């Protein structure tokens, strides 16, 4: 049985080209990029090539890129580091209620440290209203953090508009672009962001490497104190194979992003409409149009998501019940709650996230098995209307 991976929002397969590019740095070239000798130079050269390539892909300058260990570290670094560095200027942060936990938990931590945080609501499609951002700004506001694309429901936020509001009020602006970078075009100047978080493993790069875009002139206290690496913004020996792989992944994205964007959007729409018409009492979550090209999030009434997931897994189909990192959590998704979805429906939601390797046949296969799975679980659900069918 061919396994079908539809959980690219959790992590993507490392591209063969990426693994290939990393190999020399796993064996032959192993210097520490900080070392003065020739081994160090080889490492440093590889890092700076990757940095330049990645920077130019987002319209940034090489020195504006700080490599980190992933999206979570980037979010923590920016939000904590900037908040601490501006403590004397103000103590207010604005974010949205549908951010990734890496942002939300960091904000909660800061609340315990004396900061005050506004969690903006979203509309039923998951959109943050730039006017709400504007209204939330006070004299104390130092930072706005709104994600670019939501990892659960796929809604793409109006970042450029929020960025304009932030600029107008002289407030720094961070966006978690973990789900969008390499998938939809990003230019830091068009988006008017000061900080961006990115994680390589979401774009067919290696796990354990990410980056923060830090606009020139933005001062920030490091999260990792220590050596002088990354212009003293992030200490620790550089992860050379990771950075090289990240660079290659970005290069690949540069060559196929636009084509994949349209290809996956078509498959996405086929999957969504197919499921909605094949399964009664189901609904699509997230924005109908402003959404990630690879995201389909559907609620199936009367049944619980894990059961659906396990049944699909038995068919070799991998999906997610929500944000991967909290799939072991019991509370229904905070994102689905924020768009006003009743809890029973939230519990019965699945995220299908497509990727480069997803084919039309994969989609047809899902459409073929899904109704039966929902039907079986509904047959044993006390919530289903008597005689309800899939």
């Amino acid at each position, binding site marked *: 049985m061919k396994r079908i991976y539809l959980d690219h929002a959790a992590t993507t397969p490392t591209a063969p080209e990426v693994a290939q590019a990393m190999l020399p740095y796993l064996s032959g070239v192993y210097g520490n990029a900080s070392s003065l000798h020739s081994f160090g130079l080889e490492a440093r050269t590889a890092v700076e090539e990757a940095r330049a390539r990645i920077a130019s892909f987002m319209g940034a300058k090489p020195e504006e890129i700080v490599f980190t260990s992933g999206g979570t570290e980037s979010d923590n670094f920016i939000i904590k580091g900037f908040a601490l560095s501006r403590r004397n200027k103000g103590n207010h942060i604005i974010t949205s209620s549908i951010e990734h936990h890496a942002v939300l938990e960091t904000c909660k931590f800061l609340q315990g440290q004396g900061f005050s945080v506004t969690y903006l609501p979203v509309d039923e499609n998951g959109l943050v209203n730039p006017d709400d951002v504007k209204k939330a700004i006070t004299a104390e506001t130092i930072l706005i953090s709104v994600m670019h694309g939501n990892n659960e429901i796929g809604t793409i936020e109006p970042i450029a508009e929020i960025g304009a509001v932030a600029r107008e009020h002289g407030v720094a602006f961070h966006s978690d672009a973990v789900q969008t970078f390499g998938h939809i075009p990003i230019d830091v100047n068009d988006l008017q962001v000061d900080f961006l978080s990115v994680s390589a493993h979401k774009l067919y790069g290696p796990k354990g490497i990410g980056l923060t875009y830090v606009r020139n002139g933005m001062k920030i206290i490091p999260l990792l104190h220590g050596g002088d690496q990354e212009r003293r913004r992030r200490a620790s020996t550089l992860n050379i194979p990771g950075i090289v792989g990240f660079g290659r992944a970005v290069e690949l994205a540069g060559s196929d992003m636009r084509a994949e964007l349209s290809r996956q959007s078509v498959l996405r729409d086929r999957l969504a409409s197919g499921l909605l018409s094949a399964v009664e009492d189901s609904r699509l979550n997230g924005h109908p149009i402003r959404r990630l090209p690879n995201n389909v999030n559907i609620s199936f009434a*009367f049944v619980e998501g*894990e059961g659906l997931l*396990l049944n699909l897994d038995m068919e070799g189909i991998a999906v997610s019940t929500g944000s991967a990192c909290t799939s072991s959590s*019991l509370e*229904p998704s905070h994102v689905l709650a924020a768009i006003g979805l009743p809890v*029973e429906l939230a519990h019965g939601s699945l995220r299908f996230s497509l990727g480069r390797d997803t084919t039309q046949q994969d989609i047809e296969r899902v459409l073929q098995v899904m109704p039966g799975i929902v039907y079986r679980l509904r047959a044993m*659900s*006390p*919530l289903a209307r008597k005689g309800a069918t899939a």
Partner: protein
Amino acid sequence: MTQTGAYNDKVMDHFRNPRNVGELEHPDGVGTAGNPVCGDIMEISIQVEDDVIKDVRFRTFGCGAAIATSSMTTEMVKGKTIDEALAVSNKAVAEALGGLPPIKMHCSVLAEEALRSAIDDYRRRNGKS
């Protein structure tokens, strides 16, 4: 068939082929437990003769562990006296399933509670409580 992450084979067997699904037409007691906020609801109905649980059916809305423990509980109490059935703890059910992931242990309480509620209902109907 691919192996699944969270559960052992026995749990998966009960999840895939749950025993005693549905509801009895003329139950002697029915009970429910859980609530949709937690993502777990179980309904159970029992048929009792001479203090012995002759038949039992369930419906569950919940995760794999909730469904498997529901199924296993019905199997374990069928043919037992009411008192014996009350003595079947959620731990015993989990053990009979070969263990549950720690994070899922709370799910096993669902079936125990629903069963108690059905037995209470039976006793109430029969003026025993």
